[in-house]
């Protein structure tokens, strides 16, 4: 049955390709379905919040729910300013991409306000101050980042930690190892793949709580500037930005922000 076989193969191929195309089609639609503001009344518009839910304690996945400091802050801001939000785990890169394309309205993902980023996006006022810490072996004599020259340093790609190391040792420093998330960098530090990790204090301290049995120390380099986290919107979206800033102002004044802060970072 030669013909039969050929025919079957063709059928299978057609069905396969058809499925793939339709899957792509629906996938594409799903991606662009959210929040590309149609002319609906502003009252019932739900703003899409993008985040990269792999940065505990700021944002993380608990089962299928996105939780964390940032998520509570953005919810409080929205409540205070009186708009509805829907939080989506977009991932870091697609978050910025989504802002550009308009299928994400605002982003909160422990984004540090930097001059470079300000050129492309608009930031709200700051809602959190962070500084970078260096994770080192317990017996390390190092007190400043500069002393780590020539050593392998783990960072989370595209974070301020990475920028700090680049500023110290150059954009293409060979010892710089960019990871997709901070815990991976920390894990590799503990098995000796990197000599140090530079990351946000809150993240490192949070992770350090989990690995109490390991030996390490966290060093603060005084040359690192304090950073400010901001909520990010598409450049020129002043209407939404004003709402966010108004909400932020409210929760700063009524103590809600401090309450969330204490819940996560209180001693």
């Amino acid at each position, binding site marked *: 049955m030669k013909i039969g076989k050929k025919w079957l193969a063709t059928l299978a191929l057609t069905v396969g390709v058809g499925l793939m195309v339709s899957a792509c089609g629906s996938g594409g639609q799903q991606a662009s379905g959210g929040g590309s503001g149609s002319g609906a009344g502003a009252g019932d518009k739900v703003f899409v919040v993008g985040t990269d839910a792999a940065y505990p304690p700021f944002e993380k996945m608990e089962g299928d729910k996105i939780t964390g400091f940032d998520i509570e802050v953005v919810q409080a801001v929205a409540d205070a300013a009186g708009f509805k939000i829907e939080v989506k785990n977009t991932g*870091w*890169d697609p978050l*910025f*991409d989504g802002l550009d394309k308009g299928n994400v309205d605002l982003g909160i993902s422990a984004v540090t306000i930097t001059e470079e*980023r300000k050129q*492309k996006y608009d930031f709200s006022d700051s809602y959190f101050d962070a500084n970078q810490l260096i994770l080192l072996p317990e017996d390390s004599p190092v007190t400043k980042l500069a002393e780590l020259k020539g050593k*392998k340093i783990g960072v989370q*790609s*595209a974070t301020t930690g*990475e*920028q700090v190391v680049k500023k110290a040792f150059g*954009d*293409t420093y*060979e010892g710089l*190892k*960019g*990871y*997709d998330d901070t815990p*991976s960098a920390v*894990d*590799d530090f503990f*098995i*000796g*793949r990197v000599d140090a990790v530079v990351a946000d204090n809150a993240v490192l301290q949070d992770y350090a709580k989990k690995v109490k049995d390991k030996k390490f120390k966290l060093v603060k380099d005084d040359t690192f500037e304090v950073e400010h986290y901001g909520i990010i919107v598409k450049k020129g979206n002043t209407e939404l930005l004003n709402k966010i800033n108004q909400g932020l102002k409210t929760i700063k004044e009524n103590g809600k922000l401090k309450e969330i802060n204490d819940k996560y970072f209180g001693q």
Partner: protein
Amino acid sequence: MGLNWGVISQYQELFIRGVQNTILLTTVAVVCGTILGLFIGLGKMSDRVYFKVPAAIYVELFRGTPLFLQILLIHTAVIPGIWGLFFPEAKVPEAIFSGFVSLTLNAAAYIAEIFRAGIQSIDPGQMEAARSLGMTKGMGMRLIVIPQAFMRMLPALGNEFIALLKDSSLLAIISTPELGYAAFSVAKNTFERYPPYLTAGAIYLVLTLFLSRVVVRGLEKRYSPK
């Protein structure tokens, strides 16, 4: 739409290092994978169950699961595990080592099949002739069958080389400093999308074209059975 191609020159070193590592990783994986693949291929054709079964399982496992997962498993679990057991004092080797290991193991499975097909395509009369000259089975394999099979395998091996070169970009996920990682890292840090990815794509294209034109054709011309 303004594209900032300046980021490429700003991070040029990253791309250069990336290309070097991509070529190095692929070449080592092909060489080691060929040696390993020969043994696994022979194992699969062996009459002895204790060679045949493990070899068959190996090939199925590595061909039947995504390379992406193999890389993650080997890098984050297998290698640290082995080091923890056998060299607890030593530092676990870096991502590039995991890259060598995972690409080699993966390539070996595919190359094993290429070897098997190549050897089975040689007329059984060749082996019979070798045996009738008084050679042992092993000698016949080594001196008569495998050399001829190798010629026939060259196109398929060339294809595997090219596939591996492209697949090595998956190592970006474990921060192996290869070309894919360079593009990934620059895109993440500069918020520029087109320039880094298109640059990396163009470099991969040049590499694969070079491989398919020069290396594979050259080898085939030189060693083809005709």
